[in-house]
């Protein structure tokens, strides 16, 4: 049984089929790349799987449970977390608060414990703060911890988004273009983080245009074209595939 599976997903916007009968399955512990030309339906696929947009047809299962059209928050509770293509920081909050926010099981997020300043809230907050500080340090953001995240650069925002996501300790991580607009040094750094997370057992799915980084990072590549699955397999094999060269690289084999 796959950890995450999409069966016959369909999503239309107006008359346009963004994804069309798309079936993809991800095994536990895999590191999978999703690529395809612009408009191939990569982000729509993520949106349907992560509950941001309900699909028109098809099913999504997570650990064998049907989670089609579940809300993003309930999917997050089930261990599936995503990032966004255009990094979405909580710009009016500090880096620290961005990361701390994502902590699950904080009783202080309910009215009564908050009003009464319950000890369970304070104890949990201690752990949350420690963990958040660890993650902030891990991503080299500690010197920016008290900055509003609107002051961060594009690359730093990508790091912050990763740190925030990891606060949830997800089983499945969906990353939408984690290297877009990031300088080469930081790209390598982010790639290393992803590799480490995967080595620790996290299942990761990445949408990316940065082919070089992607192909050396992932175990398996999925290529989408016009909302359908074009080819999937090991990166080396996929990149040599005629159809991929035709569709994605426009016949121009690098």
């Amino acid at each position, binding site marked *: 049984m796959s950890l995450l599976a999409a069966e016959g997903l369909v999503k239309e916007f107006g008359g346009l089929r963004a994804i069309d009968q798309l079936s993809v399955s991800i095994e536990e512990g895999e590191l999978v790349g999703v690529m395809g030309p612009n408009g191939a339906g990569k982000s729509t696929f993520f949106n349907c799987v992560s509950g941001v947009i309900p699909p028109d047809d098809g099913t999504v299962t997570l650990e064998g449970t049907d989670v089609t059209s579940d809300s993003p*928050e309930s999917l*997050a509770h089930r261990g599936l977390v995503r990032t966004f293509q255009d990094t979405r*920081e909580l710009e009016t909050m500090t880096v620290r608060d961005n990361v701390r926010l994502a902590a699950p099981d904080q009783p*202080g997020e309910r009215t009564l414990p908050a009003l009464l300043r319950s000890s369970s*809230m304070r104890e949990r907050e201690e752990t949350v703060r420690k963990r958040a500080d660890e993650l902030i340090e891990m991503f080299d953001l500690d010197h920016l911890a008290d900055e509003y995240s609107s002051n961060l650069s594009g690359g730093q925002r990508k790091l912050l988004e990763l740190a925030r996501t990891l606060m949830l300790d997800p089983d499945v991580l969906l990353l939408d273009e984690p290297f877009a607009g990031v300088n080469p040094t930081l790209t390598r750094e982010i790639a290393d983080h992803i590799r480490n997370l995967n080595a620790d057992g996290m299942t990761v799915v990445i949408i990316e245009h940065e082919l070089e980084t992607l192909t050396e990072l992932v175990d398996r590549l999925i290529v989408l074209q016009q909302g359908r699955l074009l080819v999937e397999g090991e990166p080396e094999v996929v990149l040599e595939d005629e159809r991929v060269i035709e569709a994605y690289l426009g016949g121009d084999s690098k």
Partner: protein
Amino acid sequence: MNVRDRLPSGHGDRALIAGVVCILVGALFALTPLRVQLPSAFYVFVEVGILFVIYGMLVLGLDLQYGHTGLVNFGHVVFFAVGAYATAMLSAQDSFAGIALAYPWPLGLVAGVIAAAILGAAVSLTSIRLRGDFLAIVTLATAEIFHSLFVNFEDIFGGNVGILGVPRPIAAVVSDGDTRLAATLLVLGGITLLTLAAVTRLTDAPYGRVLRAIRADELVTRSVGKSTITYKTQSFVYGAALAGLAGGLFALYNGAVAPGFFTIQVTVTVWIGMLLGGAANHRAVLAGLAIIMGLRLISRFALDVTPVSSDVFASMRLIVVGLILVAVIRYRPAGIWGDPQELGVDQ
């Protein structure tokens, strides 16, 4: 850079202690033969002060909704009015017109809070899932609907006269006028301080972090596992309930309610106070409200020394308030004490 690392401890408890002290001192005046004498020039300050602490509960609730959660409520007065009417109708001994059920006033007050909370829940149920501007329109419309209900259903709400004969618990135990005013200000001020303590605790806790995250980006907040609809509804209902409490207390202080007390002017005043002081900062919104109400008070005195008619003067006052608002928005768009980065406005 202004960073408030909100540790859930200590902070905000001063308001709690001050509130309890105020209520106890107020009770001391009310229940013992102890008397105060106010200079007669002071009366107007105390009366405006009482209105200020009542409006203070309104602005704290509105700021929980708008400043912290980003919910736009242009009909805040309706929750104030519903709290006041529910309290009045349940506890009034006998009214000229409208319903007067003569239940004990504490029951009326509780009912006032609950009625406002229920209306808040109903409003949020209809529109909180929609985009923000819908909530603004629905709240504005709700306020107008209720205003015309109050005016037109005389048998129920007493029409333009309103509900009379509402018990005045403090006046009932203190016959002396000066002491009554002082005790009222202390008790109501104490309740406002307790409200301040409560909202501070809420927003300093991780609870407030979720609210501010919703204000910043609801989808991101959902994608890290927070049920934003629940939080938005709660925040809206709490704000409405606080307004209901303010309304109930107002009815019990004033001894009567009428539509004239609950015009859109109330909503405008608390909004201006909040924006002037700086949204998302409890003490700032109270200070902003104090400024706007203080200006109005000062202008009362100014009327006596200016050689213009009161009509002209009223227009001039509006112009001055307008100019101040324009100046604040131009030079301090986040309000006088607001944090522009936290509110996401460019200086």
